[in-house]
């Protein structure tokens, strides 16, 4: 195997793939990157057995072959070379020799045969969607915030993608809050899969300015994301996901519009006091004709109350965890935010009002937060 590429491009590709090459695994070869050259196409591959990253590297010169060496070591070595340098990698046995003008080094690898075979997307059966990179990044960050890290409930550690009424949705919940994003409005195919949050985080992290569009291909047990020269394949979480449509309360009872930045500020203020004693609980209250206030429950540190001006005819109050509200507000993009108090229902197992956040005039992103039952607050 032989390749010749610019240090800059090689370094970028290695950085892309080496993140998931982990050291604490039972199979040492998973620390490695597999460098494969076939028919002049060079690919760099790493995997942690939940997902794999494949970077197709543009090279000026190459000879077919395959080799695997420790990913982080190679990545660090190449990143230290001057960017404009031409780097040549030649494999011999299970070693590679890297030469670049006055630099030269040899890295010991493992037999390429030890590197696991990766599953491939069955293109014939695959359901394919394309989403603009910017929209994908914003949308996925908006739902990821609500996903759980409780591995006793595997389904909730992922983001659920599903189609409904000819639209593609992504939804995540940890049981106390739920975020739902509508992506594409006119889809023909149908899917219903849950993708691990970790894999999606990796996809979002790998996005750069050069990528304009993301192609997602779904099989029953595998998903592939294509972002420019990069491919990420990931397992799918094999666990029943709760039907998200049952989890979102339907009718808003009270609805007010406020400035998002201001609301972030007052939530932080109330949170400062809430954080110390009263279980991080704050209250959001709507008072006719024009007050939306956020306050902490009084404790030994004192109390805080702030008001925003809005318009309302109805009145109501919700207690919730300040961190959840902040998490939600931070992933919205619109300067205005619509705050709804929706009635809970038997169906949801919650009878109190539920906080539902949206952007004014749009149902594309919905974030709901389940309140703290009022009888728990003195």
């Amino acid at each position, binding site marked *: 195997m032989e390749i010749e590429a610019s240090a800059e491009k090689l370094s970028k590709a290695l950085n892309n793939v080496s993140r998931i090459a982990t050291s*604490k*695994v*039972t*199979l*040492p070869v998973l620390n490695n990157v597999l460098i494969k050259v076939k028919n002049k196409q060079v690919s760099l591959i790493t*995997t942690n*057995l*939940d997902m*794999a990253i494949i970077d197709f590297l543009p090279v000026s010169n190459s000879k077919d072959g395959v080799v695997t060496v420790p990913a982080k070591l190679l990545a660090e070595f190449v990143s230290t070379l001057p960017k404009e340098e031409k780097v040549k990698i030649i494999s011999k046995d299970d070693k590679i020799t890297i030469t670049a003008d006055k630099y030269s080094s040899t890295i010991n690898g493992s037999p390429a045969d030890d590197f*696991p*075979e*990766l*599953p*491939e997307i069955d293109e014939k059966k695959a359901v394919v969607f394309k989403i603009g990179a910017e929209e994908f990044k914003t949308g996925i960050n908006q739902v990821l915030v609500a996903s759980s890290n409780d*591995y*006793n409930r*595997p389904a909730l550690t992922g983001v659920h993608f599903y189609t409904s009424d000819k639209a593609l949705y992504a939804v995540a919940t940890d049981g*106390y809050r739920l975020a739902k994003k509508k992506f594409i409005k006119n889809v023909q195919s149908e899917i219903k899969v849950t993708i691990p949050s970790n894999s999606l985080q990796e996809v979002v992290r790998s996005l750069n300015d050069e990528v304009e569009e993301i192609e997602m291909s779904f*099989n029953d*047990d*595998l998903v592939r994301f294509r972002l420019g020269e990069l491919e990420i394949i990931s*397992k*799918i*979480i*094999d*666990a029943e996901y709760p039907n998200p449509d049952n989890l979102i309360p339907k009718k808003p009872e009270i609805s007010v519009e406020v400035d998002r930045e201001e609301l972030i500020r007052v939530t932080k203020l109330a949170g400062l006091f809430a*954080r110390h*004693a*009263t*279980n*991080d609980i704050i209250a959001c209250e709507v008072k006719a004709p024009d007050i939306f206030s956020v306050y902490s*429950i*009084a*404790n*030994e540190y004192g109390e805080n109350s702030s008001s925003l001006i809005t318009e309302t005819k109805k009145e109501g109050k919700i207690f919730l*965890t300040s*961190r959840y509200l902040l998490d939600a507000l931070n992933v919205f993009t619109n300067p205005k935010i619509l705050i709804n108090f929706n009635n809970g229902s038997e169906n949801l197992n919650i009878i109190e009002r539920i906080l539902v956040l949206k952007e004014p005039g749009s149902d594309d992103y919905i974030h709901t937060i389940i309140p*703290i039952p009022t009888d*728990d607050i*003195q």
Partner: protein
Amino acid sequence: MYNVWENVLAEIEQKISSSNFSTWFHDTSLISTDDGHIIIGVKNSFFIKQLRSKFLDIIKEALINNDIKVKDIDFKIENKSKSKVHPREITSFVSVKQKLPSLNSLKATKNQKTGLNPKYTLDNFVIGSNNDLAVAAAKSIINNPGTSYNPFFLYGGSGLGKTHLIQAIGNEILKNHPDFKVLYTPISDFYADFVDSVLKGKGKEFSTKFRSLDVLIIDDFQLIVNKEKSQEEFFNIFNNLHQSNKQIIVTSDRLPSEIKTVDERMANRLTWAGAFDLQLPKFEDKCAILRSKANLTGAEIEDEAIEYIAENVNTNIRDLESELSTILLMSDVRGLTPLELINNGSVNVSHEPKLHTATPKRIIEKVAKYYSLTPTELKSKSRVANIKNARQIAMYLLSEDLSLSTNKIAAEVGVSDHTTVLHGVKKIKNDLKLNFNLREQINEIKGKIYD
């Protein structure tokens, strides 16, 4: 189905490297073998691909060798719930245990007549600065039973070798005087036998049996019960044997004067000839103990690994041994040496003594202090939120850590009835589910209670 798959896995394990085996086969199961259509359950599609492309022939061969008809092999993703114990773990555990019998063989059969376990000898008792005095006394007793240290009272925390030392004394005495009547019994068995004999109307035989002994060895004396009749019987036997210069050996986890149920007269007599304590071994002693146990099993272990365990276990010898056997087991299963396991972070040994035990008073003090209150304020009837909250946390800890009854808790924290306690404990339990800060606070308080 599990059993067959265990055998199949055992065979596959012989044929491939242990890292490959533990990576690819660890979470597999056999779902179906109907008509030769084999379905194997795996974690995700990455595993299907690898098993199919690299290990299919090996799996097939192993299946056939276990008399399973194979037409085709398919894989299915199977999500395992965590609570389920995987059959694989059981097999590897069993096979390794068979290879390393000696660590556990100390628990071997005891002699029915003397109650002594012959495996406990002075030769395999590791002597160090923590126990040399007690051992010197023991040796003197072995040479001249019933004369110098009588009664021989030995005390120290659990797992420091009390039982080993006193049984060794019994065994050595029997070696020198095969005709001696030696009896080893935990105090709890002594009582059970006594009560039993009284009920059966054989009280006299019981008394005669004990009075005819040459050496009486009583273990775990701190468990003595506060029953007048039984204590009196023990006292009488004790006096009788002592007067006839028969050797009496007693162990306890603390001094007799600190055992509430023992009266002063008894306590005095037990320590007539002095009290010897076993202490936590020093670093060098711990290394010596580990080395000696490792040699017993014939397993290989590096000095650095031994030093690592010795440094990180600061509770007792039992914990030392159990960490050692865990590491040896893992080393056998994974095919790595103990030091490699330690260096790659697979084992994490840490046993630190609980410096304090929790008492209701201590819990209330620490909770109050954490929330900048005095214990009196915490126990007041105040319904101010932070005081009430602190009181509820105290109730929660009293219930969780000390398992006190709700009535006792009510009395400790100064609330009038147990329903308030029930409510408080439940509230904190519920809050813990969704409140991260509270969880941290309670952990910090616990740290303060036990530190």
